[in-house]
């Protein structure tokens, strides 16, 4: 049996093309997705409308009235070739003050129990992580992060909590996220930042970009609440 050749490129629906790289959650695979998006956006393709990256695939919308399928597919092939030569935009680090445990991190004990470590160790591990953002997805610019150490990998709750506050930071299996807005969620939440990572009064509504890194460092509740008044751009450092 022949191994699958990636990327797989195909027309989807009336007006989109899906490009799929290797089927795994892996930073090198995701880097190809992000590079392709950058290459496409720098090419001024008239029929190109917008694209959405995810872990291993890129969904590209185009206007079928302005191009032919063949031409659009050839433009995407050219962008893939070019994307392999591109430099990545400079990664930035968001250091977000975060309050851990208690009501703000209701799953610290659950993670500690499942890994046989102490609650303090869970918090210390979480607060030291610098996690890469793979893409913004789900709703409202929610950052999907990965590369979680095994001690913090625990399955999601069997039934999701009906409402977890925006800013909550948690883990589910090999994924991590910071909730953009109050949402139902089944992840294991360890802390919460009060920095608004999604602000619909601004454009763009978030400063996160795929390829950036996030560290949720530990502070006390008072500091976390005070720092919540500052825009998220104030917390950017070079990576």
């Amino acid at each position, binding site marked *: 049996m022949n191994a699958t050749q990636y990327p797989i490129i195909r027309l*989807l629906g009336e007006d989109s093309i899906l490009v799929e790289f290797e089927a795994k959650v892996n930073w090198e695979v995701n880097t190809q997705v992000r590079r392709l998006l950058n290459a496409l956006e720098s090419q001024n393709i008239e029929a190109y409308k917008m694209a959405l990256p995810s872990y291993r695939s890129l969904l590209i919308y185009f206007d079928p009235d302005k191009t032919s399928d063949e031409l659009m597919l050839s433009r995407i092939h050219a962008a893939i070739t070019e994307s392999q030569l591109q430099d990545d935009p400079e990664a930035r680090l968001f250091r977000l003050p975060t309050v851990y445990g208690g009501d703000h991190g209701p799953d610290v004990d659950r993670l500690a129990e499942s890994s046989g470590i102490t609650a303090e160790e869970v918090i210390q591990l979480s607060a030291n992580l610098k996690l890469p953002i793979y893409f913004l997805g789900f709703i409202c610019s929610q950052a999907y992060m990965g590369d979680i150490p095994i001690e913090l990998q625990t399955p999601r709750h069997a039934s999701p909590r009906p409402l977890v506050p925006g800013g909550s930071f948690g883990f589910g299996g090999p994924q991590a996220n910071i909730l953009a*807005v109050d949402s139902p969620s089944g992840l294991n939440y360890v802390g919460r930042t009060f920095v608004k990572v999604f602000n619909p009064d601004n454009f763009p509504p978030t400063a996160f970009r795929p390829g950036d890194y996030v560290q949720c460092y530990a502070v006390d509740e008072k500091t976390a609440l005070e720092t919540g008044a500052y825009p998220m751009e104030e917390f950017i450092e070079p990576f």
Partner: protein
Amino acid sequence: MLKYALAACGAMDQTSVRLINSLLGNQPTAAVLEITLIGLTMKALDSGQVAVGGADLGLKINGQPAPRWTIHGVKEGDVVGFTKLNQGVRAYLGVAGGFDAPEILGSRSVYLRGSLGRPLKQGDEIGALAQTGNYAHTGKKLPQRFIPNLDMTRPFRVLPGPQYDYFSPKGIDIFSTAVYTVSPVSDRQGIRTDGQPVERIKGPDIITDPTPIGAIQVPGSGLPILLHRDAQVTGGYAKIALLCRADMDRAGQLCPGDKIRFQFVDRQTALSMLNEHEGLLAAAQKALAP
């Protein structure tokens, strides 16, 4: 907005909104009210012109039945009500000039899951923007041939989805022949169905990937969910099909209990259907121009 993971949002039945705005002489982007199911009563605080399209929700003005797709003049104290679920679930009420609703990220749409805006509640007052350009005249009607056909017994046409090959030939056969019942837990995010589960070879979980608007995902239950205007932009379930664009707005009028069927078509057919649909909307716009 897609790259910031914001749902498409907007009216579930875009066709009806475009027609109501054409009728009223409004900009195509003018804000209208989406009225889901019955019970709403509104009182005019000033004189003006209103028109209602989309679902037939038993429109009454001052207690008298009033036709849809017609411009009605209202004066202070007049009462507009929606009294009976006749066909479809979402009526659109437009006013000359469009409603003056706050813009968030360049849109006047409410997006509940993202806490962007809120539904109207009892006691709210909402104004109209001044109309520019062509004025509407009371009594004007949308010609019958442009009124959308909300017959849900016509199949919903689909194209293969990104994980079409996750389903067995038997599963594909079930999906394209079974009759599904629209579930009461449907909302602006997804239209859920009850019926015969679709058989899979792989999945249901996949590595989270983009969920295009109109995608039909099949979670562990095997029961298809059609993702509509407020759907999340990425998700982790296999997607068997994509609803053809030309059928999206009719799907936006599905009512719990409706019986529906899916039918695969080829992409050329889907594109012709879309061109025909757009052509009809353009013809309506032309016919309604003063």
